């Protein structure tokens, strides 16, 4: 009986995870298109349904109706496998994420490690897709994607290590519980959150780190040869990733489902207002993603790698050491950590731009003048 219940539970959660991925992707696509249109002084999709909310549903049906086309010279097996596999990361991550109190697939003891491991799946399928389609743009895009995602996974892990140190557990449920009473980790370790968030934007291949599919250089990167629903799978995954990554960030740094009156309405053993808080926080971060994408020009490959290896990784390591020192030697270490981390946060935010500009000014002064 227990086994049957377990199987049923597993099926229910897989269905929920897929639903979240698809619904999130469809919502995010319309959301981003409308938000970009608003910022770019145009209308955006506004014909399908009220205010265009059904646009991405219509697009999804259109894509399903398209010819299932494969280039003659592409590797048939891998070319088909890549779009099937690409969803795995986004779906499987949700196994360890508590949507709210009572809706968690499994409180895996090594949740944080699982998070890191499973998100790399996307890289693998992007590399497969780009390589198997026998197109030079795809190949360059796929290699860029692989290099970038592997580089940015390291600062992300460095951020997660701090979370694990502070909480003292690798279980995601424990992380949420440790943040009860508004002791959100983002409040006393904002610098860690910043590192994690920048790295997660790069993981998502979104602007300003959207090099693998920079349309002005590589047509559309690894997805150049994909069309119809195969392309749709990559596309859906990319947009679902926005929500999934924001969910992870909310769970780890913003107290997950916790908030005012989170446990006020409870039936079937589930706190429903907690679910609302979880969604609200998630979508605030999704909006930040859209905003960042529009406000920053795309980095270049060398700048991108330089930022990961020369800035984020050293800072992440220093952050771990400093956090460890504070936890070891400062008696009320949460206050100590808050002081250190906020100072580091503002120093990073405040100094990165001036330092970059100072270096650029110096460079400009040294630059040879051709009009002499």
């Amino acid at each position, binding site marked *: 009986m227990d086994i049957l219940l377990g199987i049923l539970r597993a099926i229910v959660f897989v269905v929920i995870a897929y639903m979240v991925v698809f619904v999130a992707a469809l919502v995010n696509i319309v959301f981003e298109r409308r938000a970009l249109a608003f910022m*770019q002084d145009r209308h955006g999709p506004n014909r399908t349904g009220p205010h265009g909310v059904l646009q991405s549903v219509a697009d999804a049906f259109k894509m399903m109706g398209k010819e299932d086309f494969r280039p003659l010279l592409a590797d048939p097996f891998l070319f088909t496998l890549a779009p099937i596999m690409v969803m795995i990361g986004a779906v499987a991550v949700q196994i360890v994420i508590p949507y709210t109190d009572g809706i968690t697939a499994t409180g895996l003891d090594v949740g944080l490690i699982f998070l890191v491991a499973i998100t790399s799946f996307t890289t693998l399928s992007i590399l497969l897709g780009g390589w198997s389609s026998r197109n*030079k743009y795809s190949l360059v895009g796929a290699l860029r994607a692989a290099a970038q995602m592997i580089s940015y996974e390291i600062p992300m892990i460095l951020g997660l290590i701090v979370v694990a140190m502070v909480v003292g557990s690798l279980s995601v449920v424990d992380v949420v519980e440790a943040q009860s009473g508004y002791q959100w980790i983002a409040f006393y370790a904002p610098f860690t959150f910043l590192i994690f968030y920048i790295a997660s934007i790069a993981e998502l291949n979104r602007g300003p780190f959207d090099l693998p599919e920079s349309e*002005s*250089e*590589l*047509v559309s990167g690894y997805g150049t040869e994909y069309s119809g629903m195969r392309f749709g799978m990559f596309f859906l995954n990319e947009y679902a990733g926005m929500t999934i990554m924001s969910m992870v960030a909310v769970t780890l740094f913003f107290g997950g489902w916790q908030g005012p009156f989170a446990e006020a309405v409870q039936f079937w053993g589930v706190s429903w207002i907690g679910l609302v808080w979880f969604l609200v926080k998630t979508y605030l971060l999704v909006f930040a993603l859209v905003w960042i994408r529009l*406000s920053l020009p795309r980095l270049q490959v060398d700048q991108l790698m330089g930022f990961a290896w020369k800035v984020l990784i050293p800072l992440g390591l220093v952050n771990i050491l400093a956090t460890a020192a504070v936890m070891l030697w400062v008696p009320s270490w949460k206050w100590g950590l808050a002081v250190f981390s906020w100072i580091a946060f503002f120093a990073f935010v405040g100094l990165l731009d001036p330092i970059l500009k100072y270096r*650029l000014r110096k460079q*400009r002064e040294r*630059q040879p003048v051709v009009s002499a």
Partner: protein
Amino acid sequence: MFDEFETPEPDEAVKLALRRIDEATARGEGSDADGLAFNEVVVNMGPQHPSTHGVLRLVVTLDGELVKDVIPVIGYLHRCKEKLAERRTYFQYIPIVDRTEYVASINCEWGYVLAVEKLAGIRPTRRAEFIRVITGELMRIASHLVAVGTFTADLSPLGTAMVFYMFRDRELILDLMEELTGARMMFNYYRFGGVRYDLPDGWVEKCRDLMKRMPKLIDEYESLVDDNAIFLQRTQGKGVITQQDVVDYGITGPNARASGVAHDLRRTRPYSVYPELDFEVCTLDHGDIFDRYKVRMHEMRESVKIVEQCLDMLPKGPVQSGSLRAPYVITPPPGSCYVGQENPRGEYGTYIESDGSRYPYRLKYRDPCFCNLQLFPKLLSGNKIADAVAISGSIDLVLGGIDR
């Protein structure tokens, strides 16, 4: 299993790129210092590529991210514009000039009309001269808006916002032009000895209003990118055109002025009423992508100044010299002439040879984009792909002018 399908024979440009790789390998340049062979890939950018702005085709040899060699291939938009002139009267040819370089079409019209007027010895009326300067400078602003907008769009989604802002404001200029000429792109407005219509009622006020707003709009565009460290990093010091390049390749227009060459035909070989107007020729010192962008922004401001002066100085009188029928029948005396005119992209030269009949014997354009394109292999080689795209965007090519 791949043998079942025949891969198509590569065309001449791709063959040339492959041959150059082989030659480099034969010379011993095919490997780096450690003796490892470069893995060069020949990639076809265009004619349908999102960042070639038209039907330009670049056969690019890539070594990883690095561009080793570029072979531009043109001719996808060739419409025999020059040959068409030989079977049309001088007057019938005016609408066709519009279609050569379509982003700043009225400036091309101006070049053609100037050449015919010089050949036939016609003098336009003074009011018509001012109207020509006003429309020409308005189109210069519109053309630079397109140039800078598409260039920033190559850099990022931020640029996509810029494109929308810039096209929004280009619409305002096109609306003015539509009210004046009845067309938004192919104006067919200039006539030998004048222009087709006088300014409609209230047009001067509308134009003045727009010119008052324009500097603020330009400030807005600059504030979007000028202070952005990523933008500066991607544009400063990249794709430098030296003064020697300018001389060797015949680079003109904003691209030359960004390298400090104060060559502006409105000043160096003045035509129309430009000597009476007060404006400065903007030159910058570094000749890189950033300077080329900056020169265009500055030129827009100068154009606004010129239009405002012309609106103030606008004299009364006819807009067409001679009778209104005069421009329709023109038989210039035998001979030839060349007139260079400052297009938004550089020196737009028109060469006409007349045998005394109603048709031009021969017509030839010197298009600035064509000369600028020749610099591509030198300018792009050795840069990263992303830089190459940014550089080619900053050169601002219009394929209609190159292919004609």
